[in-house]
């Protein structure tokens, strides 16, 4: 029963990663990221029960605190400060194309891993599925970072990549130091976001303002910060 629940969560994680690529509203992106992190917490607890590794409970708790509550609150604060709602047409790849590329990515990762890990894990095991999904998530997050212009979307793509690495690490091996990794990456993102927050300008935002001004959607009082 537990392995089934873990399987369902894994597939849903992949779905959320695809939604991340194709969603255009920034608040949806943050919500998506929260759901992804919740699923990760569930997977970690499920694995902790199946594999009997109490360390994973700690990781699950840490993920819950930082990624489900902490980081999204921080990002929302920045969004309110910068007053952007939509990430329309700020990408080099339309959502449709991005989803097609994701399918290609998943296929590619599956084929590569089947060749490399076949000595270690059977094709049907939970671990194989977990590692394939982990690496696919990393690549899909990379797609988000590369093809979107707005900095906040890039940050969320990066966070999704980090989730993928965490997932991969959980499944492939036991890692005693993964906690430090998690803390470290969250710290990096915090620093990044603080910079964005305090300085508040980067060129994609300016482009965005110009575009909104063209449609008379950005009045001057709002624009002056």
């Amino acid at each position, binding site marked *: 029963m537990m392995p089934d629940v873990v399987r369902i969560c894994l597939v849903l994680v992949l779905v959320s990663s695809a939604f991340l690529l194709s969603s255009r509203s920034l608040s949806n992106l943050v919500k998506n990221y929260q759901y992804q992190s919740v699923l990760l917490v569930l997977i970690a607890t499920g694995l902790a029960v199946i594999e009997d590794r109490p360390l994973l409970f700690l990781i699950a708790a840490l993920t819950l605190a930082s990624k489900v509550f902490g980081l999204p609150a921080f990002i929302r604060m920045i969004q309110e400060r910068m007053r952007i709602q939509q990430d329309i047409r700020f990408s080099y790849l339309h959502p449709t194309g991005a989803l097609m590329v994701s399918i290609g990515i998943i296929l590619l990762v599956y084929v590569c891993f089947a060749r490399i890990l076949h000595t270690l894990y059977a094709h049907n095991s939970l671990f194989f599925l977990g590692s394939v999904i982990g690496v696919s998530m990393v690549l899909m997050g990379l797609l988000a970072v590369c093809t979107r212009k707005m*900095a906040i979307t890039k940050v969320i793509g990066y966070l999704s990549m980090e989730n993928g690495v965490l997932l991969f690490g959980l499944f492939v*091996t036991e*890692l005693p130091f993964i906690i430090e*990794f998690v803390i*470290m*990456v969250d710290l990096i993102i915090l620093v*990044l976001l603080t910079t964005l927050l305090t300085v508040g*300008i*980067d060129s994609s935002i300016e482009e965005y303002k110009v575009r909104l001004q063209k449609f008379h959607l950005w009045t001057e009082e709002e624009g002056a910060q």
Partner: protein
Amino acid sequence: MIVMLYPVCGVIILLLQLTQKKHQWLSLLGVIHSVLYLFITAILVLYPKTWDQNLFFIVDHLNVFVMLITSIIFTSASVYAVGYIGGLVKSGDIDKRSLRIFYFGFSLLLFVTTMALFSPDIALFWIFAELTTVLSALLISILTIRANIDASLKYIFICSTSMLFSFLGIIFLFEAIRNSTGVGSLEWSVILKEASTCDSGMIWIAFVLFFIGFAAKSGIVPFHTWLADAHAKAPSAVSAVLSGAILNVGMYGIFRMTGIVHGTGVAYQASLLLLVFAMITMSVAVFSMLCQKKLKSLIAFSSIENMGFILLGAAIGTPMAFFWALFHMLGHSLIKAGLFLSAGILHRQYKIPTRTGEDEIGDLFRLQPVAAITLMGGFAALIGMPVFPLFFSKVGILIACAEVSIWIPVLVLLLFAIAAAALIKFYLSIMAAEFPDGEGPAPYIAPVWMIIPIITLLLFSVMIGIMMLPGEESFLLAAVSDIGIRVNP
């Protein structure tokens, strides 16, 4: 135990810096920090008997060598910063409140780089390398112009996403070691011993993924896109540190990993991979140098070219190639730091907005004779003139390449010729430019503290270029064997 002095001093200085507000005290603390580190490193170099391995640090010839380079560059940069940052504050480019952040970040960067170089296992190395990325990005964006913020964000994104791939590689490596020995470990020494017993497929994938991250950190094409903007837009003291010290951290990681892979079955593929990337890097960098119009961008692309050349040395893999690659690292850092610091003086001189709205260099020898000469010396060194150290390392690596295939040195020499043409063309263009009478800027008297580091760096590079210091050859050979390449006596 001497190595413990590094973190202890670092923490003390950082705490002191938090309490200061005036520029003189902050910059003085920065200088003291780097000088202390230089001193500790000198002790480590001169007394190898004091090295002891403990849980927290690994001390061998390789990282002491790279640490030496790092501390020299940081010392020069912090001495230079006394005058340079002061000038920036006076002209209003930096807010007074950001001063404390700048110096704190600078010292923290030195601290973190040291910790990265001396870290005993790969995971800690990864964490500290990420921290260097973040801190240097912070330093770049201290001038809050939009272009700087863009450059800094691009830097963080490209390097951090590539480092995530590196982490995937680390996980693979851990699993490979765990499969062959039963208990996984990520310490450099353990992995070096056990690598040959692991499954080749996993080691290969681990190597490729690991390479991606640290290649991005060192500016290897195609992960180099952040380098030109970041190094060009940052304040010159920071550029010197970035080019001279931080790029070396990435190379250090690649060196160790290459050494690990050397004993396994995939050594040939790994070398081929490194060779391909090195050649592509050098070509792209050299051809980009031809079209640069700004001084600092030109120097930044030259950094990429030199990093590609060091990678070529690592690709060839013979002890001689590694020896000269390490030497090239030293020479390149010294020269590049000197160049960036001179460029900083020129920036302070020509900063007035001209008709075109950008820095326009003209009347160079009249206005800034010292900077002009050091710039000429730096360019000559980059081209590979015999008085300077890069001459020996280029010859050495090219001879090692010739043993593999004669076409590699031919191509590389062609690329070097093109790079030389680019540098000379640029220098001639700025040497010849003259302002019409009365339109030129007033001469900028650079404070003595800005000139001394440049002269020192140049003199030191000439010294190591002319002669081998006593014990230097054996030290470098020991470093090569520490990487994992067996050196035949």
